[in-house]
């Protein structure tokens, strides 16, 4: 399993629109399970409503983990996605 930490900089946090973009991005990596964790809560990043209900806001630190598939490549791609969109 590979993971990285990220602090949300988007002023609206993971609202509906960014959550939708995230789910779209995660769908590209069907061979990996991608999980977003904040504190003791975590959610499969394919789950739009679950993600929204995490209530992730600007300044929140999250951990993104990748399991299965080409973990190094997927992890790098997810990190790039977070930096560009969140």
């Amino acid at each position, binding site marked *: 399993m590979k993971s990285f930490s990220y602090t949300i900089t988007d002023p*609206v946090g993971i609202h509906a*629109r960014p959550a*939708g973009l995230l*789910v779209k991005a995660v769908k590209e990596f069907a061979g990996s399970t991608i999980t977003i964790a904040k504190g003791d809560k975590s959610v*499969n990043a394919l*789950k*739009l*409503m679950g993600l929204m*209900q995490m209530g992730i806001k600007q300044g929140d630190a999250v951990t993104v983990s990748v399991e299965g598939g080409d973990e190094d490549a997927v992890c790098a791609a997810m990190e790039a996605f977070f930096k560009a969109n969140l």
Partner: protein
Amino acid sequence: MITIQGKGVSTGVAVGPLYFYRRADLTIRRTEVADKEAEWARFKAAQAKAIEQLGELAEKARAEAGDEAAMLFETHQMMAEDLDYEEAIENGIKGEGINAEAVVSETGEQFAAMFSAMDDAYMQARSADVKDVSGRIVSILLGAVQGGIDSPVPVVLAADDLAPSETVQLDKSKILGFVTSYGSGSSHTAILARTMGIPAIIGVGDQVKPEYEGREVIVDGGTGEVVVDPDDATRQALLAKREQLLKRQALLEQLKGKPNVTKDGQTVRVYCNIGNPEDVHTVLENDGGGVGLFRSEFLYLECDDYPTEDYQFEAYKKVLSDMGDKEVVIRTLDIGADKQIDYFNLPKEENPAMGNRALRICLNRPEIFRTQLRALYRASAYGHLCIMFPMVTSVWEVKEAKKMCEQVKKELTAEGIPFAEDVQLGIMIETPAAAVMSDRLAKEVDFFSCGTNDLTQYTLACDRQNNDLGRFFNPHHPSVLRLLKMVADNAHKNGIWVGICGELGADLELTETFLSIGIDELSVSPRAVLPLRQKIRETDVRQCREKLVNDLLSDQTQI
């Protein structure tokens, strides 16, 4: 005749039969099913259909209102195929053997409740989206046609409030106007009505009764009035108003996007005066070229204590980003005189118009000024900002204000906060002293804007709030016009631009005079933009300049 008062959120007048929005009968009966697999397949088919419908709606919204509107339906699509949502439905159908309609409806309620319980207003509002999505799948399962208008003639549509998916599906050719019981100025109904240019009135509660269906109504989106069974006089008055509005609309269509240029090729910028960030849409609707005067006082008037830097920053940022690359002149705090604010604790004055007001307060209480300037410079990164100081009489005041701007810029640089380097600084010319000293003041600033209301009152020594002065109060007095010419000449000699942001700017009797003395910008209320543009386009300055300037300076003019 029955008159009902609501809140107008989209202007216009419409007349037609009242019609209540028909929702499909969505009575759901909870039953047990024998063939669970078949029921699950029925759900999957309905879900696929819903996703297909939402895709069509997204494309329709994109064409009508852009990507942002389309994203709403794309989010709905994702909700419809959300894994947790689907799993909960699967459990209900395959596990408990309940019919799909009941399971979808109950699951929708559960997910909506989870959003409602969140401590974030935005997320709470998403519960409506989940319900909307579930409602769509349920209506497909029930085989219901999406609700709508079943009328051969166009109608005034009444509803409690309309969901986004409902407004998009409406047959627009059948709607003359909207009346809703609830909703807000930013609800989907209001936005749709403004886009369509038809009247909408919200918040009528239960005053519009079902028995009014089919009766004649007139709605006035400007005043928020709904008249059921109007009498002849009311009908005539409102229809006349409708004619006027339509003429205006025609003028708008005809002049929209056209330059403010005279027959002989002189151009003048026509900007708008506003007092609130929400006014920006009326500027854009009326095709204003920018904001020539944004009165920042409202921020102070609507608060019970000094507004914070962040609070002000958000308001300025909104106006600047909404206006895009168009110029926005924000006037720093102008209170005192006729605008008093309790928490400023200003001592009572015998003659407040000549007292402690505007820039004078700011220079005496630099901590208030500094907060505003910091908010303004921070916001400058989001648009095209010009800052304007009101109530100037001396060069030293301008120097002191500019020094504070420099200091604020230094602070922001040190803190690593971005701001625009090209913010123009200007002053109001509203005292005779500033007009007379405009040759010196022009060397200190990037622009002048003449506040003719105060300039007239100070020049003529006529209190503008005193209605008894009659013939002594003459806004066309040559003394004022001569001062304006002097200010314009001094501005141009020093290579800066000059505008007028007082009421005189919209006075069509003076447009030729202003063009003759070379005013570069006229800032008027949004509704005055197009009539002024029309006047400018009909004017030939070559033919009137000499005569008007001579009249202005002549010793023969009747005064």
